[in-house]
């Protein structure tokens, strides 16, 4: 941990270093923290120690991603205009596939939410799903409304799809996924619809060594 603090001179305090490296050690190795810090610095062109939305916007490949802007938004918690390194790593850590080889230290705090539901998913995947849910759910009411779904669909479908087609797809999607018939998709329903998506596999494929 002291090592981590030495490596990251720009962050605020030593105690915060210890805290988040504690937290993250379960998920991200020190080598990764260093790499992420390099990346953070590369993105932070003005060397303020914080990332602003336009720093993310500068990643040109995100402009070629249909939901790129939403993902950028996911980095910024409500009320925040900038992202410091801590939050940066914390969010990225959601996407790190669990490595079986790393010894599990029981004293480390468990990532949140793992105890709150009896899931068959490992904690990381669960938090990944909640991040994904947030992408849809703009107004944070815990449900994906039809309008919100429409927006996401609009951004993910080619331009030649008409509004009527879009709406019909959205309607059918809600019909299929909405189990309690409230015309919106709750988190539980969302999670259910992801059961068949092999997230672990996807993540491990993406993050090849």
């Amino acid at each position, binding site marked *: 941990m002291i090592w981590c603090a030495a490596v990251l001179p720009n962050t605020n305090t030593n105690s915060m270093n210890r805290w988040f490296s504690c937290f993250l050690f379960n998920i991200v190795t020190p080598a*990764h923290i260093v*790499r*992420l810090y390099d*990346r953070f610095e590369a993105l932070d062109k003005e060397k303020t120690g914080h990332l*602003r*939305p*336009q*720093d*993310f*916007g*500068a990643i*040109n*490949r*995100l*402009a*070629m*991603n*249909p*939901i*790129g*802007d*939403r*993902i*950028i*938004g996911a980095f*910024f918690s*409500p009320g*925040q*205009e900038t992202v410091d390194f801590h939050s940066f790593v914390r969010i*990225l850590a959601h996407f790190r596939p669990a490595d079986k080889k790393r010894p599990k230290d029981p004293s480390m705090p468990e990532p949140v939410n793992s105890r709150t539901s009896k899931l068959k998913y490992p904690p990381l995947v669960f938090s990944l799903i909640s*991040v*994904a849910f*947030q992408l849809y*759910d*703009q107004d*944070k009411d815990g449900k994906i409304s039809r*309008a919100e779904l429409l*927006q*996401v669909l609009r951004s*993910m*479908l*080619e*331009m030649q799809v008409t509004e*009527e*087609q879009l709406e*019909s*797809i959205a309607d059918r*999607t809600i019909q299929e996924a909405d189990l309690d018939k409230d015309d919106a*998709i709750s988190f539980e329903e969302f999670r259910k*619809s*992801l059961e*068949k*998506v092999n997230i672990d596999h*996807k993540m*491990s*494929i*993406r*993050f*090849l*060594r």
Partner: protein
Amino acid sequence: MACRTCLWLLGTTFFTCTVRLVVEGTEVGATQGSQPEPGVVGSNHSQAGGGHGSSISGIQIVTFKWHHVEAPYLIALWILVAGVSKMVVELNHSLTSVIPESALLILIGWILGGIIYGADKMQTFTLTPTVFFFYLLPQVILDAGYFMPNKLFFSNMGAILVYAVIGTCWNAATVGLGLWGCWLGGAMGDIDIGLLQFLLFGSLIAAVDPVAVIAVFEEVHVNEVLFIMVFGESLLNDGVTVVLFNVFDAFVSLGGAEIDAVEIIKGIISFFVVAFGGSLVGIIFALLISLLTRCTKNIQIIEPGFIFILGYLSYLTAEMLSLSAILSIVFCGICCQKYINANMDERSVTTVRYVMKVFANGSETIIFVFLGISAIDPAVWVWNTGFILLTLLFIFVFRFIGVFLLTWILNKYRLVPLEFIDQVVMSYGGLRGAVAYGLVAMLDENKFKEKNLMVSTTLIVVYFTVMLQGITMKPLVTWLKVKRAAVTELTLAEKIQNRTFDHMLVAIEDISGQIGHNYMRDKWHNFEERWLCWFLMKPSARKSRDYIFNIFHQLNLKDAMSYVKEGERRGSLAFVRNETKADVDFNKKFRASFSEIMPDIMADNMGPDHVPLSSILQDIVPSVCLVMHEQDLTMRESEDFNAHHLLQQHLYRGRKQHRHRYSRSHLETNRDENEVQEIFQRTMRSRLESFKSAKMGVAPAKKIQTKHQKKDKPQKMPNGNSSDKSKNHPYGDKDLEFSEGDCGSGDEAAGDLFPMRAYRVEAGIVNPAFMAEMDPMDNMQQIPHVALLPQTLNSFDT
């Protein structure tokens, strides 16, 4: 149907006629050539048709000068026959999906061989090692190297090397020793052979063949990691094969008694020399090619020629130095791709790619046809049941064992382990092909008394692997896959989520700059960017790579500024509401200044991380149309089928890594480019929208723009920490210089951006696309994306 049958018949008759002509020609040539010509110096190709040195009786109006054209005519004819065979093979697509092309070509080869043999009573045309190794193989391998997906190749290089080196050695040793053991046990009867010869045979039969692998895997679509493993292994194992072959050949010549530790050590050293030396030669030639293309600005039409000639020279040079020629040409192709694609004119690049495919296809076809023909030659056939069957058994079994063993070891070090089905496919896909045959045909009959036996066995092995394993590969894969995964149709929601996840993961990958890159790779990348690109790329190509996004940034800036200015002029609300008039014709404005750079921007579209930038720019420069397409389709039905179909058709596929499908006959598709452009334009548009609407949010409060008047703006800007934003000027000072005529307005627009920065984010995740549908006035807090706009493209390669 009738048309197809006609084509078939036509093809067959063409064949027969051609072959008969060839055969007759050879007969004539043979008979004429064998006549003694005392008075004529030199070759038999007499100048006067039919003249034997004796006097001619009168002027001949037309003569049949077969000798005159014999050699080139035969070559051309064979190429034609090979081409026609390929055409015949491709007539029936359902047939080729079951039986791989290579197998069908071998069949045709058999037929042709039969015809020729029937006419000639001897096999006049066989696949000789010289022709094979010097004229047929290089272009196939150059094609493989040039189209190699580098990123994938190098990131799996460790595993590939393990399979190529250790796997091949294992195969060679086990097959050789196994056969030797069986021979000692008497399973093969009485043949004049020894341990060393067995080992030599093992080493040449052990190597997986690139030509055959491609031919079969073209039909069977496996995941890219698996593909690159088998493919990479087949290319790199040549280093081992050459060494083993030469070493054992030398050992056989020396005789058993002379072999001591020194020789063995020399053998091991020679492996390293051959392998690394070959690669080095290839890399040197790649440098040469890149340098040459760098200087050909004035005479672009000859550029493609250099690639082929220098590639071929690299092959021959390595061969001359007794290094691994295949490794040399592979690395030549791999290393030069990027630079020549950047340096050369677009048309040259297209030419090179297409011609390479043509050559490779042609070579492959000829190789397989001749492999078939060479079999129809009783002179080479020696049948020894034990030898042949045991060879087949051993190569099959030991391949499986070898792959599983090595994979088990490798999986301990890999993050993504290779699964069982992958290993099965890898083992089963270890096809032997023409390289083995070429090597065995090179053996000296005097040293190897059983050469014909070996040739026969090799041929049978090749036929077995290419035909049987080729045909059964696809069903095997399907069967295994079906057993593994329960395939149920996904619901709409699942499909959408699936795709969303894909996009999300791609985005995270981009943001994080791909966690997990190791130090070496980054270092290499930096080195390459700094030195190699400077040395090997044309200045304009380099400039365009660096400035590509600066240009875009400027373009987009100007677009934004002029867009907004126009709105100001016309009155804000009307402009805001009327979204359809947002066309900006870049063509007129910017073509003059950027036209010189545009043509040099190359499409670098081989790897997943190289988005075809030129296509983006070329399309966006003429017409950035900020109007959404409206189509008049009225789709009232909301049946499941339609919705699923819509999703199937129209979901963006995103930038996946599964894009480089190496194919002998297809160049890459363009669909992805359009998709990327569309997404890009939409993102830009939405950011522009949010920028515009945020700006509109400012306008009602203040009609006249003021600079730095943050304190005056009321409740719309809960200003947190915006005191000194001047240094965070979104456009950057230097960009103002680009708007030569617009300096003043540039300042104005820039000044208006200051307040933007001061907005606090109140909503959690803001969605610019969302804004387009809502009243822009309501959402003042869409700031992160407002601010996104100016800096959007201000970066090369983040």
